[in-house]
């Protein structure tokens, strides 16, 4: 596959941004500064970016409770996201949503979602809109190995196939639904893609820790979907480096598991190793991006901390457009 230098740099920047955003949140949450539940996406960067690098603002995604990575990959404003997670009034959602409910419909990010499995039907609806517009746009539902067991996901896959709309079901299998392993909870021998296939869709599988593999496989999938207007699915084998939520003691992990994953399955390391041999990029360019991203995240946290808090007198705004 032909890559452009700009494209690869952009992909790396997005992955590095997700990683540093999440690593930094992990630290700040430990300090007690951030309210509520936070589910970190670190480890899955290649999945979100490998998918979203193919999309523009008219393509739509719906995300999950573990949504920061999808938001960044789709192009949400990182500083506004940080303010949202801090619960500030000029956060991306005015401090009303928080970590689990970040959205920016103006760029086709239709929302992270606190309900596991709620997003898949919504992607079918967005795909109906994409079909009506007739410009070859697609709608993507990110789901995990938890959501793959929800009836809503099954209903959505069947309906997408029945009414034939360009909906794409991206299953990020990070092998844990909350604190339960996919070996236990996914009855089809941990195989999610075969379920999608059973609904009559074409399916693909890729290494969700490897940007190149995800990106190239998605290119094939998108050719199929944009060409046929039919739904499709992909299962991405990926990893999460943190717990289900911040504060999760992760007693379900094997000894040394996370260290091994960070050694063998780190999307950024895999990207760098690829570029070290591929010579499309100079590793110094990646180092420079890392530094820029660090500065961005530092600034995002500083600004979020300093940002004005929400005003209780505005609690009743925006429930309705008009009431």
């Amino acid at each position, binding site marked *: 596959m032909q890559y452009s230098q700009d494209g690869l740099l952009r992909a790396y920047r997005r992955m590095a941004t997700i990683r540093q955003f999440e690593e930094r949140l992990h630290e700040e949450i430990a300090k007690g500064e951030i309210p509520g539940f936070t589910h970190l996406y670190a480890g899955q960067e290649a999945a979100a970016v490998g998918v979203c690098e193919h999309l523009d603002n008219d393509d739509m995604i719906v995300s999950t409770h573990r949504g920061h990575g999808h938001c960044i990959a789709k192009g949400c404003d990182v500083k506004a996201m940080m303010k949202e997670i801090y619960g500030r009034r000029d956060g991306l959602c005015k401090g009303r949503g928080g970590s689990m409910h970040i959205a920016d419909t103006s760029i086709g990010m*239709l929302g992270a979602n606190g309900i596991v499995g709620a997003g898949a039907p919504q992607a079918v609806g*967005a795909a109906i809109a994409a079909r009506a517009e007739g410009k070859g746009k697609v709608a993507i539902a990110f789901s995990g190995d938890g959501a793959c067991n929800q009836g809503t996901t099954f209903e959505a896959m069947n309906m997408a196939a029945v009414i034939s709309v360009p909906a794409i079901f991206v299953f990020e299998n990070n092998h844990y639904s909350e604190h339960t392993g996919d070996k236990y909870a996914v009855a089809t021998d941990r195989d999610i893609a075969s379920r999608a296939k059973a609904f009559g869709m074409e399916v693909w599988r890729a290494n969700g820790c490897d940007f190149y593999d995800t990106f190239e496989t998605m290119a094939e999938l998108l050719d199929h979907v944009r060409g046929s207007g039919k739904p499709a699915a992909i299962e991405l084998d990926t990893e999460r480096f943190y717990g289900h939520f911040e504060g999760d003691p992760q007693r379900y992990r094997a000894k040394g598991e996370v260290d091994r994953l960070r050694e063998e399955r780190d999307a950024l390391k895999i990207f760098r190793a690829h570029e070290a041999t591929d010579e499309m990029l100079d590793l110094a360019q990646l180092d420079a991006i890392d530094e820029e991203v660090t500065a961005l995240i530092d600034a995002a946290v500083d600004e979020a901390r300093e940002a004005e808090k929400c005003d209780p007198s505005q609690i009743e705004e925006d429930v309705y457009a008009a009431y």
Partner: protein
Amino acid sequence: MAVMNIREAINQTLHDAMERDPSVILLGEDVAGGAGTAGGQEAIGGIWGTSTGLIGKFGPERVIDTPISESAIIGAAAGAALAGMRPVAELMFADFIGVCGDQLINQIAKFRYMFGGKARCPVVVRLIYGAGMNSAAQHSQAFYNLLTAIPGLKVVLPTTPADAKGLMNEALHGDDPVMFFEHKALYGKKGEVPEGLHRVPFGHARMAREGGDVTIVALGRMVSFAEKVADKLAEEGIGCDVIDPRTTSPLDEEAILDSVEQTGRLVVVDESPPRCSVATDITALVAQKAFSSLDAPPECVTAPHTPIPFAPELERAYVPGPPAIEAAVRRTLDWG
């Protein structure tokens, strides 16, 4: 003005809306019907007759027959709305909100607020409701009370053909999710319907009768029962205000309070069970805001606290009827 029934008014309004606005789509089970059968497309035409003729005119990409998947129907409507469309989703029976509750109460009700006021989710969910067809406990419930309790949703109960058209047009012009409750026993009710883009604003009650002695607030199918009672009592010289709120969210509090301030007596008639209902809500409103005007304790005429029974004599006993309303009105007059 043309005379038609509520079924025809809704059908005509949907035809007009889809003609006028290409972003309006309809989805639900058997909204066309017959797909994948020997009888072919539109063998059914919508089981309530409200979507008849739409697929022939607008095609299967805008009139979407879905599998029996209520969560996916409402979820798809939500996603299509976020993506810029105006979906009209049909729940063949309002009882099925039990199946798709998450998409209604956690998803579409919340998007606008939770996403900082930027997301737009103008879904119209048509919920066919109500007892009277011996369809028992899972196909008869008047669930507007449940959805009235959810901030972010608007709840509409048309009781005349003109209002069915006007409220549907209003729903299709706003940017909020609207729960549009259609009583199955009212579909055949006839009346005059204004031509053109007739709109009825939400939160404005209809004064169905003016009498001045007792205020009857009636919901949905109960309005016609209340009118019957008012007409009968008028012959005895007892004047009833009959208020049809038309929307329970927003609720026209002013119309109710103004009337009670004049009459001092309130009867609320509600087809839902008695607890945590629109009836108790309106009674509380009056107790809080018009306490000093009351000359008698408010009366609630409701269904009993039971599931809806099947047998005809039991179902008749379940649904509040004119005799119970009349008795309640007389109790308020006889009090003290």
